[in-house]
């Protein structure tokens, strides 16, 4: 952002702008991608279970409460009479999820838990993804003002945090293990672990078992990674677009053009992101149903 060939007036204005948008583009991005965690600075090691991302937890619990609030509101108004628009919309969601669950999981007993779980996951993930629609600097700036620390970290999209998405996919894995044991019995499931998919032969036992472990790991990691990757990339693109607008004071035609670029790209990406947000929430829910459905089927 430094511009040595500027006229004096422009230079003064730029000094001001540079003070307001102090960090360089790289620093801006890195700052926005750093979590507000219990250590107060960016996590150094890849895995450190003594650290908790406070921002992810706060926003995911907030959106979770919002999910419950919305659904509870519909529950309170639930009548068999003529539904209103809000009621109709929630019922549309419920019916959609119930239909999907019915098509994938054939045990009525399991559906009693799995279908509501899928509904929660869908609405919750959708709301967490939708946090992306707030301007990238809005909530961090408010937080910096409230906390008094102008360098405070704050990330508002919980699903752009791998911990959140892997946490949920681990939940789905636990449900898979639970239903495997419940439907097939502990013995039956262990038998399946060693005899499927290649067949029941002592030589094949280790191969089968390794395959099963890989399958479970791949399912869980890809389940969490898919959502994380989409939302992380989406957030990153929003930040890059925000960088264009931040340079609106640049010399000559570049500044206004960059500003225009921000408006254009920001609108286009936000509109496209509506699709991604809903689609990823739906995919996450469907995969959860499919994986739990697989736990019900013997090989």
């Amino acid at each position, binding site marked *: 952002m430094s511009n040595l060939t500027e006229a004096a007036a422009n230079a003064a204005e730029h000094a001001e702008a540079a003070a307001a948008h102090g960090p360089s583009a790289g620093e801006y991005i890195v700052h926005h991608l750093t979590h507000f*965690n219990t250590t107060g600075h960016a*996590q150094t*090691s*890849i*895995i*450190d*279970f*003594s*650290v*908790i*991302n406070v921002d*992810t*937890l706060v926003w*995911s*619990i907030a959106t*979770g409460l919002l*999910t*419950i609030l919305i*659904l*509870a509101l*519909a*529950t309170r108004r*639930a*009548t*068999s*009479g003529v*539904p209103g628009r809000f009621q109709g919309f*929630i*019922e549309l969601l*419920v*019916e959609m999820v*119930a239909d999907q669950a019915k098509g994938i999981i054939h045990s009525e007993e399991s559906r*009693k*838990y799995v*279908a*509501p*779980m899928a*509904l*929660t*996951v869908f609405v*919750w993930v959708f709301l967490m993804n939708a946090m992306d629609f707030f301007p990238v600097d809005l909530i961090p700036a408010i937080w910096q003002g409230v906390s008094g620390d102008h360098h405070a970290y704050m990330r508002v999209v*919980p699903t752009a*945090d*791998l*911990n*959140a998405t*892997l*946490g*949920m996919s*681990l*939940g789905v894995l*636990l449900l898979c293990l639970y239903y495997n044991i419940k439907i097939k019995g502990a013995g039956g499931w262990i038998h399946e672990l060693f005899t499927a998919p290649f067949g029941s032969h002592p030589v094949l036992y280790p191969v089968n078992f390794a395959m099963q472990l890989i399958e479970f790991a791949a399912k869980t990691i890809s389940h969490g990674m898919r959502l*994380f990757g989409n939302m*992380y990339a989406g957030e990153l693109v929003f930040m890059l677009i925000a960088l264009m607008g931040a340079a609106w004071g640049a010399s000559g035609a570049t500044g206004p053009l960059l500003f225009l670029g921000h408006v254009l790209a920001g609108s286009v990406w936000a509109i496209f992101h509506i699709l991604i947000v809903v689609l990823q929430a739906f995919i996450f829910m469907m995969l959860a149903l499919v994986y739990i459905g697989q736990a019900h089927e013997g090989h």
Partner: protein
Amino acid sequence: MNLNATLFAQLIVFFILAWVTMQFVWPPIVKALDERAQKIADGLAAADKAKTDLAHAEKKAVDELKKARESAAELRVGAEKQGTQIVEEARAEAARIVAAAREAAEAEAGVAAQRAREALREQVATLAVAGAEKILRKEINAQAHADLLAQLKSEL
């Protein structure tokens, strides 16, 4: 993309949210949906029944109308027949009365003629006598010629 304990916190939040939905959200909504579906099914069944009832009632109405029309036609035929009969009877009665009247009139006329004839006969005798008196210029004894006059009377 660092991993930390947020993972486990999120895992717990996931299960709590799913449990809350299962316990408090899903059952009432699904119950309302099922009840509404039942209501709609009942409503449709009632509509079907009403339609059948209507068709039934319409058929019945048509039958009644047909029956009424038939009985009306029957009545009309009967009435016409009766009317004709009354007219015939009246006509016969009238003819009978006319004939009787004519008979009576004829009888009366006959009697009147007879009486006139009688009267005339009486007067003829007198006239004849008067005439004869005038012709003969001479008084004729009516008593003496009574036989002659009676004979003349019967000849008239």
